[in-house]
């Protein structure tokens, strides 16, 4: 455990010095600041006003930015470190492979989740100061959703880093993965699959295998519990899970996907050449 924590602390300190992290922090802090500046807390959409309106917008933006950011920066730094000889040296020190891999994952997880979470906390503090009501239930669920999203894409990033033998290959694979998930994002496209006589359950099943779709639908469900904007797909989702069940699924499935990817990445890492 000591080795794992030492590795995690090392990764955090490396990340805090990295330029990508400064940009990453600036992006999420900046998004919240801009939403406040442009008076989003005073606007009204679909009956949402105040901080809940800001959080809805924030999570939509986060979903667009966070996955690709986490994927690219993870594979760049992990595969890049290996390519540059960092692994050759640091793995010559007496650290177990498990402590090294999971320590890196824990350190990186803290580093990528902290700015996103702190930006939300900043929004809440600003809301309290301005006397705006804080929707604590929504804040808690969104926090859990973002934590899960970070874990999901971090796990995938670690798997890609373990599989790819060069930074270029790792970056290419990460980008392709993100693009593929994006292409399967729209449930309207899945309407075409339904037209091609695929059963609705299979079509929606394919859609919900995509973690991006899971997050998007979960975020929608918070201000549209009946998922009216999704059209007929909503029936399948709500019949299968129910409103509360889907909320749980939206946290459990991506977290499991991220963890399984990380475990697979660890198996590849410990069985192959390290540097």
């Amino acid at each position, binding site marked *: 455990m000591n080795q794992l924590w030492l590795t995690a602390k*090392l990764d955090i300190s490396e990340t805090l010095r990295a330029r990508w992290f400064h940009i990453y922090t600036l992006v999420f802090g900046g998004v919240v600041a801009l939403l406040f500046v442009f008076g989003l807390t005073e606007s009204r959409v679909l009956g949402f006003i105040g901080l809940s309106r800001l959080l809805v917008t924030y999570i939509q933006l986060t979903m667009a930015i966070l996955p690709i950011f986490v994927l690219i920066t993870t594979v760049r730094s992990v595969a890049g470190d290996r390519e540059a000889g*960092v692994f050759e*040296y640091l793995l010559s*020190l007496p*650290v177990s492979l498990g402590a090294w891999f999971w320590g890196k994952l824990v350190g990186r997880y803290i580093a990528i989740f902290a700015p996103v979470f702190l930006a939300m906390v900043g929004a809440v503090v600003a809301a309290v100061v301005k006397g705006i009501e804080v929707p604590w239930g929504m804040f808690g669920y969104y926090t859990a959703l973002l934590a899960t999203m970070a874990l999901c894409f971090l796990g995938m990033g670690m798997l890609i880093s373990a599989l790819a033998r060069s930074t270029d290959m790792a970056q290419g694979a990460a980008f392709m993965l993100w693009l593929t998930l994006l292409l399967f994002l729209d449930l309207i496209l899945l309407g075409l699959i339904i037209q091609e006589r695929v059963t609705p359950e299979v079509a929606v099943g394919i859609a919900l295998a995509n973690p991006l779709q899971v997050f998007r639908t979960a975020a929608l469900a918070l201000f549209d519990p009946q998922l009216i904007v999704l059209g007929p797909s909503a029936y399948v989702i709500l019949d299968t899970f129910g409103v509360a069940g889907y909320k749980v699924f939206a946290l459990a499935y991506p977290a499991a996907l991220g963890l399984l990817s990380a475990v697979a990445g660890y198996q590849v890492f410990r069985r192959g050449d390290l540097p």
Partner: protein
Amino acid sequence: MIRFRKLSKTFKRARVLDDIDLEIGLGERIALIGSNGAGKTTLIRCLLGEYVHDGEVTIDGRDPRRERTALLGLIGFVPQLPPPLKMSVQRLIDFSAALCGTDPARIVAIAERLGLDVASVAERQFVRLSGGMKQKLLIAIALGRDAKVLVMDEPAANLDPDARKIFFDLLAERQHDATMLISSHRLDEVSALVNRVVELDMGKVVLDDRVADDVSLSGMLTCRVTVKRAEPALAQALTHWRFEDRGDGIEWEGRIPGPDRLRFVGMLSRYVALIDHVSLTEQPA
């Protein structure tokens, strides 16, 4: 102590190590030489448990891949190219010391003996240090603990003459309780440090020879050089070796670390046509 048995390593179709059989005992100081691509770094990485391979590598009968933590605690490693670590010098020292179970003050003390003022660079990123500073710090981390095996890839390449002398002294202090594996593609760089030479070529051991162990790692030689005429290039080279001009660039005098004698003579040989007289006198210990 260290045993390579039928060790082979293949990358895609290229066989980089080919059935290596080698045994290395406690106290042996091995020069691992060979041209680029001979397999030296791959052999070292197999020893460090970093590569999967065919055959067997053991240290005291144990596999460094399976028992990483226990065995790597016994190995001090200095890589050929310093890694581009972004962490601060202090963090690297603390991290290495914590993993190796040693006191960071030991590492700092060795770094300072080598001429690196750790306090003045403690907060600087490792990657931003000069080549020589990086090398001194990596050597200090390798020697600042109770390592039984020292694996060094071109360890003295970036060191200035003073630091080289101290480095040889440090190795001399460890020569009876540690096994050393020093890799280089030039024998003259390491010849006087070692008592056995193993040469690799195309992944095979092509030479395994014991060498006379007469050179003291901590000894010094007094050297006098007389040249036929003053020559700026030679003067610059001798000044680099901390020689003093005793008369218009004709008479030079200096001191050379014992293990560096071959390297010094190698340098001098480039100016052989200018040399009138050379004397090397071993100083009593």
